[in-house]
């Protein structure tokens, strides 16, 4: 392959919420019509018809994510989402998976810091069967102990296996190092230590606290007639009447910005390539600077012809791929630059990265870069709303962050209105070559002396130690 994917799924999801209008305003609507309704049990449902193919995508978003994991038992939210599908009073885990598999339905779960969710994709002809099963599992999971034991065993094995492939882990180490004791510094899926402490009662508690109709959003997109589908949902969910206590979103404090640069070196003995990330504290979801920063970030490291890619790949061949992104939550999330390089070239690659950040901070972007970044975002934008699954997820997430479709339409104008002066101010405010943390995973025997020639505040850690926090 020529290019590695630049963004993780979750950062792409945030990118989706930043959408500008296409160059030619052929469509005034960003996404098509959809309706918002409420079931008799209080669950909000969004329905969008898309009838090109006989499939349906359903997305259930729970307003509770990993920041709500009990201290020391990180991973509870994630395990709960998984085990919702592993047994009810009527069906055990094998029955459930057999029933979904037998109609070719595909099931996925995800956990983010602030929300978690379930996606189910199925053929429209199987609607009755699938919806009944979905409702049964969401409303009455039993969290069998043997399923919990199996899940934890697999998760721990998976974490151990991931340590063989460090490219997957830099993210985790970065979050822990950047956010330290802040809620965002705790691993979303837990680590080897926290997972072992999770018991059935943790799952039951999490479920009782957060899984009730008024705390869930169900979005459904695909081959159906809306009233019809609403009736079908009403029918299967009617008996789920749990009130739940009114859910207060956890108050997460604002993370501290980085005061001075520090570096974490994670030793992976035989690594031929060092994977690294540079991070700082960025912006929250609702920050009005997000439009301009999306443009600036595209120019910096959000496309193949970005400034970072030019410096680190095209001109020097130091790396196969580099990207940058802002991830936004209720509170400021990280700004990240992510890349890799041969061990011997790591210091150089890091220096070039920091120099590029410095250049952006001091000079901003050119009018050419501004035009190119806007054009790229606009041209690629329709592709974010192609599939039923993409649409179902975007609708659910918009709702979670309090964005309605008409808001999106005002964003277009705001995005187009980002001026060169705006970008200069933003780059000066949000990019720094000094107030950053750096994480490097690689061969410490060779890297440590090389890094020490340039930077002084270096912490060392072995990759095989459990978790990501010293």
């Amino acid at each position, binding site marked *: 392959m020529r290019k590695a994917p630049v963004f993780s799924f979750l950062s792409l999801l945030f990118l989706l919420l930043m959408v500008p209008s296409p160059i030619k305003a052929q469509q005034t609507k960003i996404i098509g019509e959809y309706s918002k309704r409420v079931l008799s049990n209080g669950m909000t449902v969004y329905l969008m018809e898309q009838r090109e193919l006989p499939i349906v995508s359903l997305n259930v978003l729970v307003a509770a994510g990993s920041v709500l994991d009990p201290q020391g038992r990180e991973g509870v939210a994630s395990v709960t989402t998984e085990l919702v599908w592993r047994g009810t009073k009527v069906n055990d885990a094998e029955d459930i998976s057999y029933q979904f598999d037998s109609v070719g339905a595909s099931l996925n779960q995800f956990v983010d810091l602030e929300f978690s969710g379930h996606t189910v994709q199925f*053929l429209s002809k199987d609607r009755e069967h699938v919806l009944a099963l979905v409702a049964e599992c969401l409303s009455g999971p039993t969290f069998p102990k043997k399923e919990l034991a199996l899940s934890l065993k*697999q998760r721990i094995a998976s974490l151990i296996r991931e340590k063989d492939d*460090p490219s997957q882990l830099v993210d985790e180490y970065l979050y822990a190092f950047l956010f330290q004791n802040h809620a965002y510094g705790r691993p979303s899926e837990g680590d080897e230590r926290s997972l072992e402490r999770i018991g059935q009662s943790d799952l039951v508690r999490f479920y009782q606290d957060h899984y009730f109709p008024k705390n869930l959003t169900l979005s459904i997109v695909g081959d159906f007639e809306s009233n019809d589908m609403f009736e079908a949902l009403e029918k299967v969910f009617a008996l789920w009447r749990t009130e739940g206590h009114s859910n207060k979103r956890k108050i997460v404090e604002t993370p501290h910005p980085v005061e001075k640069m520090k570096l974490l070196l994670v030793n992976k003995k035989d690594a031929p*390539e060092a994977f690294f990330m540079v991070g700082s504290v960025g912006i929250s979801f609702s920050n009005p600077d997000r439009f301009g920063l999306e443009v600036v970030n595209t120019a910096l490291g959000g496309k*193949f012809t970005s400034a970072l890619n030019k410096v680190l790949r095209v001109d020097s061949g130091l790396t196969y791929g580099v990207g940058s992104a802002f991830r936004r939550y209720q509170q400021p999330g990280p700004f990240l630059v992510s890349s890799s390089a041969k061990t011997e070239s790591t210091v150089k690659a890091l220096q070039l990265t920091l120099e590029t950040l410095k250049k952006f901070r001091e000079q901003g972007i050119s009018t050419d870069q501004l035009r190119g970044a806007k054009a*790229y975002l606009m*041209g*690629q934008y329709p592709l974010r709303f192609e599939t039923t699954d993409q649409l179902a997820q975007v609708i659910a997430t918009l709702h979670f962050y309090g964005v309605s479709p008409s808001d999106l339409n005002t964003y277009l104008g705001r995005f187009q209105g980002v001026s060169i002066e705006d970008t200069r101010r933003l780059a000066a405010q949000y990019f720094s070559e000094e107030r950053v943390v750096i994480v490097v995973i690689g061969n410490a025997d060779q890297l440590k002396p090389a890094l020490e020639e340039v930077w002084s505040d270096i912490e060392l850690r072995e990759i095989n130690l459990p978790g990501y926090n010293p």
Partner: protein
Amino acid sequence: MPIFHSVLLFLFCLPLVATAAPLQLRDFTLANGLKVIVEEDHSIPSVSLQVFYQVGSRRELSGQTGLAHFFEHMMFRGTKKYPGNQFDTVMEEAGGRNNAYTHRDMTVYLNWIPSALLGRVMELEADRMVNLTLEKDVFEAERLVVAAERRSNVDSDNNSLLYEQLWANAYVAHPYQHPVVGWSFDIDHWTLDQLRQFYHGGYAPNNAVLVVVGDVTTTKVREMVTQTFGRIPKRDIVLNHITPEPDQQGERRFEFIRETQTPSMIVGYHVPETKSKETLALEVLAEVLFTGESSRLYRKLIREAELATEVSGGVVLGADPTLFMMSASAHDITALKKIEVMIDKELQSIAQEGIASEELRKVKNGLLAEFYRGQETLEGKGQLYGLYELYFGDYRRVFSTPDEYEAVTSEQVIEVIEKYLKQDNRTVGILVPESTRAIKSDKSSKES
């Protein structure tokens, strides 16, 4: 992690009502041999434009491995008309994005563009089909990028290395033994002459298929294609011969000792090329064994016996005789031996009892659902048409394959197990943790 380029993605079963090809799907062939497939789809104001070249790593000689993939990179590094990295800058500044991938049998170039950019991108693609400048300094710079790609995607990941070793062991003569990215040594030693030879021998309109899916009209596409690709003359295709793989006459096993905490195994059985009639039965078998949590091996190895932490498998896409693969990760090395025994037992059990109609139905429903999912994007549809054209010589077979799938029987699945999934026909690789070896040698030195 290497993915199985399984025809699984592209085979599916027909619903009760037969599926016909969309009315807006057409094709034409230019005088110079370029086949063009066009589907009008106005759901979003975008176009997926894809170019499939029938040349991949299987056309490389030993000592020059990785050349096809390297060449894919060089396709972005400049022509006379669009020097430097203008292919990328012109495209991205007009709102387009591109990527490419190299396979053993083909190299595929993908573009996601706003509809207005169609003419320009056609011009760019036609231009680089024949006019690359291939300069020395650029050649050297891009060599470093590919070396970096190998290091980050293969050398840094034990399972990618294990996969590479499996193919190198399963094929003793045929070029499928080469890693697509190339061996490190070869990456460092390619010459510009070898690259030019590769270019002129394999990149021509009569060795390519162009697929356009999206917000276009067939008339306009035909016009643009004629004006751009139409000007390129047909060429003699000169490619290295391919040594056929001799029949494997006995099991091959190898160990791959690495610093790891996760022992795993990988297996490859020799099976016919994708266009064989037996491929469908093999795909059904893969689905029965591996797909979904109710699949036989997931259930038995992961849930019931708790021996494996991961298990997967499938048939790999191949223009030449290819592999049916399996892989599993375990908690410890003794578990792997048990996993092997259990897999053999499961295969034997299917060979003896066949597959019940309910299970066959489940499998076919899964494939139907995947078929529809694959058509949700413009890119997905384009990929289906291009791959079918290359592997079956007929993209329209996408729409008639459902009938063939529906017709797959339990007996056919039994037959392919008996013919191909036998010990003598397989290669097995084990990723062994170095620490396991240390314990063993400690023990033996104490005992002596």
